């Protein structure tokens, strides 16, 4: 993170920093709403499906497929939120000791690898989206065009990557263990 700050501190104006911060804030807000709504729908869908099946003997057609599609959206919207807040599962064993040696270099490496991973995920998902468009793949039960799902997911992955980068720049100053 310091790596980015060092570059930016000299050049960046407060307005750039502020607008990035605002952009990140909005992104997280939108992702939170998307994921939250999807989760509620998922919850309600299972309930209505079970009630429909037992009480009215009329389950929702393709409920499990809808739930699967909601799941993938929740995951990738959530990934963006995690990235923006730098919340991930890490094992901190030697972490702190090595950080002391050269915090700037250390963080540059760690975060570069994170960005590479996100880039990889976003890229393979975009390829997948193209492929599903090309072959016009559809889901088995609902015959729903998969390209819609893959496109949304790859866009979410892309947003996740940007929120990772923006998050690093914006939160860079007040992150633990990174004395600047």
């Amino acid at each position: 993170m310091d790596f980015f700050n060092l570059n930016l501190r000299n050049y960046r104006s407060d307005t750039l920093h502020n607008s990035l911060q605002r952009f990140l804030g909005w992104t997280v807000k939108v992702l939170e709403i998307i994921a939250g709504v999807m989760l509620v729908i998922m919850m309600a869908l299972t309930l209505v499906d079970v009630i429909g099946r037992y009480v009215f003997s009329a389950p929702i057609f393709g409920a499990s497929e809808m739930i699967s599609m909601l799941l993938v959206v929740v995951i990738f919207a959530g990934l963006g939120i995690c990235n923006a807040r730098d919340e991930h599962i890490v094992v901190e064993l030697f972490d702190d000791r090595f950080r002391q040696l050269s915090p700037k270099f250390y963080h540059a490496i760690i975060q570069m690898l994170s960005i590479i991973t996100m880039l990889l995920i976003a890229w393979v998902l975009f390829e997948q989206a193209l492929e599903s468009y090309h072959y016009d793949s559809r889901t088995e039960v609902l015959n729903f065009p998969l390209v819609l799902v893959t496109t949304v997911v790859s866009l979410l992955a892309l947003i996740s990557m940007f929120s990772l980068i923006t998050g690093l720049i914006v939160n860079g100053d007040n992150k633990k263990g990174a004395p600047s």
Partner: protein
Amino acid sequence: MMLALIGFSILLALCFFGFRVGFATLLVGFFGFAYERSFTAATAMVAQQVLDNSMNYNLSVIPLFILMGVFIYNSDVSRDLYDAAYAVLGKFKGGLALATVLACGSFSAVCGSTLATAATMSKVAMPSMRSFKYSDKLATGTIAAGGTLGIMIPPSVPLVIYGLIAEQDIGLLFIAGIVPGIVLVLLFMLTVAVFVRLDPKAAPATTPSNEQRKKKGIRSTLPILLLFIVVLGGIYSGGFTATEASGIGACGAAIIAFIRGHLRTIASWKICLVDATITTAKIFIVLLGAIVFSQFINLSGMPYDLLDFVDEQQLTAVQLVAFIAFIALLMGMIFEAIGILVLLVPVFLPALGSTGVDMIWFGIIVVIVSEIGLITPPIGMNVFVVKSVIPDARLRDIFAGVVPFIFALLLGLVLLFMMPSIATFLPKLMG
């Protein structure tokens, strides 16, 4: 085999240096696969694994059960569960610690996370134990260890993930976790009893709970019990699938929270939903990374080399599982349950299959070993959670406090080895 070991070493190194676990496994898996096959094959594999698994209907139990736990966590029911447990156990020596164990157990029955269980019990049980001058060792040790019940007593996220990897029925696994969970609760209580017998000063006498709190506690425990029975009963009777049970559980938890005066504003819903989303995403990124990694490991042929090794040595099922449990114990010092599951289980699947191990039983074994990992140094996640909620407790005391409970868990492990039916009895009844 060699390549797989190099992959594992790089992965461990990356994790030690503080790299994000999920990203590290995904990246190492990707490059390993690309090295063995080709770059194009690796990207295709990553795309397929990421999409297939994040669109897996069976995995939708994860966000829904997490949501159920978050609702329960935010409904302040833990205080009442604790009061009810104390009403039952208060008359015994060390009653507050015994009640902590029981409350952890009942909280776990509606919450699949050890961290949430440990965190909420730290808040609820610690002040009472402090006010009666319980030793910090006993108090914090009980909470940290009691929290680990979260992954054994269903619903349990690690059991869902195990079910996915080992291709076992999630419902059966949940049912299998019930009796071992109860056995562990009893073992933990026994541990507390021995602890206070050896060190009576650790648990001074307490006053019995007053009638009013007792009644309120028991009254609020009933809906929680009902929710557990509906969710698990539905799975057990085959009335609904695990995913349906999780959805109904989340709805039920929301209703309980609402009746208790929570979840009445959009803002409070948002807090819960965002919390559940973040937890879900964190779990899935570790899961997806590990699945990609295991594709690389499978390609390297390591699982089959291990199979040959097992055949050569003519290991029996029990010997093999004991060997795996030992590795899992070592891994538990560093990784948490999900990491252990996804890195370890796929490697041994062919070998396990050839020796005819009961895979439901094996799942319970892996979970109990992961529980030990949650409280052993250097990285005992639950210990750190307790420490973060109770900052003035000394880390040394908590680690010292969990030691007797580690022995209790090891005893539980031995019991499971000696009597596999503890885990397999209920699922077999089911069919």
